[in-house]
């Protein structure tokens, strides 16, 4: 086997050293019942690179790669151009094959990178401190709710109806066991998010309000209003962002009063990857909340010679020290995705991120105008960044998305897929446009939509 360096002579010598006559002697503690006589049946034997590559390529070929067709999907996962040098960086063996930096003297590379990452995320979110990453946006959202209940010692969380439904489900899944009470609802189909409705649900027992920004319909809410209402009742505002690129164009949640800002970082450096691995971002506006944060934190210090260096710090919040009293059970996080994110962000910089955001918005505006004139199609949003909701006449949007796919167009995400059974949302199509979308792509979508929407349901 190409991955196993021991030779048969090595094995003999080593068994001898262990006083074992055969490898079986080293497995004597396994009860008879569980000992297998040979290789597990019903599985193939080892194969060379060529054979394995053929197998995997055949599977890959059965998927429609986003880059090969007009592509308009978003809803929590966005396709952006990743500079070639990002892959160079994350492919460095010293980053790729390192473990969590528990031996800081030989992990300064990972540690300094994390310190830079934390700084970038904190600034992007308008917060004081960010952690070294969580699994993804949805688990970060749940960790935020859990943290809010710790901080406020209250158990009720109010979720905006326009929070990504999968995020809401993750929060509710966890809550059913922690005994937290989750108030949520489906989004109302209207031009403006219903913030009054949301704030009216905040009471003295509310630990936090969770608002997505921009929201699941692509709308942009005035977080400061919600922050005020929440703070008035002693609750925390948790802002959820699924598209970091948007923050190159719109105000940061921290700036607007959010107390905890969480989000999905996949847009930068990570790619689509069918949903994972992604990158959970987590930041707090007020430094006093740091000790309640989940996940790892990298901090600056000095070494025995006085040189600046970095270490993992405040570990007393974490499971490996605090065990059942930890702020979270997370251990492995999304380190390499954080590296991809920070490398991409470093290439962009303030200037590049703003240009990227402007380009996304410019193309999205163009697409919205073009698609809105397709007969039977209307634009819901007043405001949006690179994602907006279209209302389609005739067939449910979900059928139209499937039929578009048959025509080699990935036309968007139907709200019917996200909110199965919610009649009011059946005809809504969420369309996303990024810098990778071409004018031709937009024309193609318009043309195909025209053909399909006209067809009688």
């Amino acid at each position: 086997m190409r991955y196993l360096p021991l030779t048969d002579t090595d094995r003999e010598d080593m068994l001898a050293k262990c006083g074992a006559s055969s490898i079986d002697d080293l497995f004597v503690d396994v009860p008879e019942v569980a000992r297998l006589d040979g290789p597990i049946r019903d599985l193939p034997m080892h194969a060379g690179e060529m054979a394995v590559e053929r197998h995997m390529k055949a599977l890959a070929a059965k998927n429609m790669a986003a880059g090969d067709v007009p592509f308009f999907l978003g809803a929590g996962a966005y396709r952006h151009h990743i500079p070639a040098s990002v892959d160079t960086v994350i492919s460095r063996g010293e980053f790729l094959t390192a473990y969590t930096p528990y031996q800081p003297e030989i992990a300064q590379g990972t540690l300094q990178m994390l310190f830079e990452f934390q700084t970038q995320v904190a600034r992007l979110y308008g917060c004081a401190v960010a952690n070294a990453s969580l699994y993804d946006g949805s688990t970060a959202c749940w960790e935020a709710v859990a943290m809010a209940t710790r901080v406020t010692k209250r158990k009720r969380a109010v979720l905006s109806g326009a929070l990504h439904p999968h995020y809401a489900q993750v929060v509710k899944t966890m809550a059913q066991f922690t005994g937290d009470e989750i108030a949520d609802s489906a989004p109302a189909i209207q031009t403006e998010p219903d913030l009054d409705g949301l704030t009216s649900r905040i009471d003295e027992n509310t630990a936090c309000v969770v608002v997505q920004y921009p929201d699941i319909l692509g709308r942009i809410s005035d977080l400061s209003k919600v922050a005020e209402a929440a703070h008035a009742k002693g609750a925390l505002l948790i802002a959820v962002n699924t598209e970091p690129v948007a923050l190159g164009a719109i105000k940061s949640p921290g700036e607007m009063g959010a107390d905890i800002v969480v989000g999905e970082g996949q847009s930068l450096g990570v790619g689509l990857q069918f949903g994972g691995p992604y990158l959970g971002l987590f930041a707090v506006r007020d430094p006093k909340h740091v000790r309640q944060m989940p996940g790892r934190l990298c901090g600056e210090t000095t070494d025995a010679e006085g040189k600046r260096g970095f270490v993992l710090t405040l570990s007393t919040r974490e499971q490996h020290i605090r065990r059942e009293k930890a702020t979270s059970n997370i251990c492995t996080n999304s380190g390499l995705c954080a590296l991809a994110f920070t490398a991409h962000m470093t290439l962009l910089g303030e200037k590049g991120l703003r240009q990227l955001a402007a380009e996304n918005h410019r193309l999205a505006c163009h697409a919205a105008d073009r698609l809105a004139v397709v007969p039977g199609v209307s634009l819901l949003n007043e405001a949006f960044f690179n994602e907006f909701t279209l209302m389609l006449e005739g067939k449910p949007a979900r059928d139209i998305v499937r039929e578009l796919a048959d025509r080699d167009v990935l036309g968007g995400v139907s709200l019917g897929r996200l909110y199965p059974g919610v009649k009011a949302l059946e005809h809504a199509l969420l369309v996303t446009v990024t810098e990778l979308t071409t004018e031709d792509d937009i024309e193609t979508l318009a043309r195909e939509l025209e053909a399909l929407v006209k067809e009688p349901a």
Partner: protein
Amino acid sequence: MNAPNKSGWKPAMELADGDVASGSATTTGNRALMLEEPLIFEIGHVATTGVDLPEIDASAGNRLGGFERSEAIGLVGLTEPETVRHYTRLSRQNYGIDLGFFPLGSCTMKHNPRLNEKMARLPGFADIHPLAPQSSVQGALEVIDQLATWLKTLTGMPAVAMSPKAGAHGELCGILAIRAAHTAAGNPREVVLVPESAHGTNPATAAFAGYKVEDIPATSEGRVDVEALKARLGPDVAAVMITNPNTCGLFEKDFRTIADAVHAAGGYVYCDGANFNAIVGRVRPGDLGVDAMHINLHKTFSTPHGGGGPGSGPVVFSEALAPFAPLPYVVEESGEYHLVEEENAGDDVSSFGRMTAFHGQMGMFTRALTYMLSHGADGLKQVAEDAVLNANYILRSLEDILHAPFAESGPCMHEALFGDKDFGGDLSTSDLAKGLIDEGFHPMTVYFPLVVHGAMLVEPTETESKASIDQFITAFRNVTERALAGDESLKQAPYHAPRRRLDETAAARKPKLVWQDPAE
């Protein structure tokens, strides 16, 4: 400004470790190929960028609803040459498996095959959207289904949840399924029993799921005390969480007996599968009475650790727990694959819910499947055997000079455990660890498990050559002798790393977690 380096400490200090007379001191703080690197915020500029995007047309209107950013974000950019150099220089301050022996116990730092990386980057896998119409991602769903089949067959378990994002997330998935099962049966119960030697994620997970955590005592030979455990079982115990092979590197001989007892008491058996590498292809946990077990694809199945993540923690389930598995999952019908989600879960309403927004760590699935196909049933069996052989070889090559608390408890599995009991002076495990750094090795896991004083957990994995292990043993013996002799110089180690020992206390006392412009 001609600042020779901006990384914030005085070059003069460099003189400390280079004899001035010998002229080996440097003004930059660099030492030939060991290069200092400032923070991006110290070398980047607000107006610099490493991408060429269209200039912003200020005249163009926007539809941002009046929320456009007014203030600066506070980011800096680097051009591509600076970016590549910045991260390359940082990477060189890191130790990885690609550099040398990395026997970090409990972490299974095996080689990461490069074919895996290549396959994961195929556009057909890397460039597909989680919400794409299922007809357009049949290959992706098939990958998940094939991997699920491998995991079920290798563990001898009937069901598997693929979405958990790492081991701890998998633990949560397993305990939530257990809690859901108990709840469905009318009472979630209150307690989860966890051995003292368990990894921190176990108690943390149980607590997160709303359970009270109680210790399971261990025997002097490093295994679960079966009698004590049996005595504690009762209607309040929801589950036991046992790691097998355990964190002392031993196989829990009586696992089957324990499982039967727990089941008899109406509880469930959660097995922490982090150490599956010791038995993969050779022992099926399903034959031992396990109800739920997570598998770290980033350990046993070679997906890279990436400096802390990402990982992937699928959970296999017994018949009893299968109905409570989380959504979504993939089912195959006459060659067609589709996702079972909230809507079409049908009568499977018993699912406890959703653990993450999408379908799990696809990027790790493609790597793990590639790894499995490469090894096959025969190769995986060899993996377990070589991993165990290497660990026992190390145990037997060091036990004569280093305290090995459980050396008499039979062969170890994939890792060998030692303690610092006999060290001289006030030297302890961490001093030996830092000494190994100078020798060019990554230290073993230290101070875990908690049951052994100054624990040193050495896990070689199967991807090390005998020559490499022999060199490690020689160096380890040498440093150990110094530790036993109380060689104070070890307290200063490492001498040759990019940094000497770092002040962790200061870091925690006044946390500096983001960069502040000194000018501000």
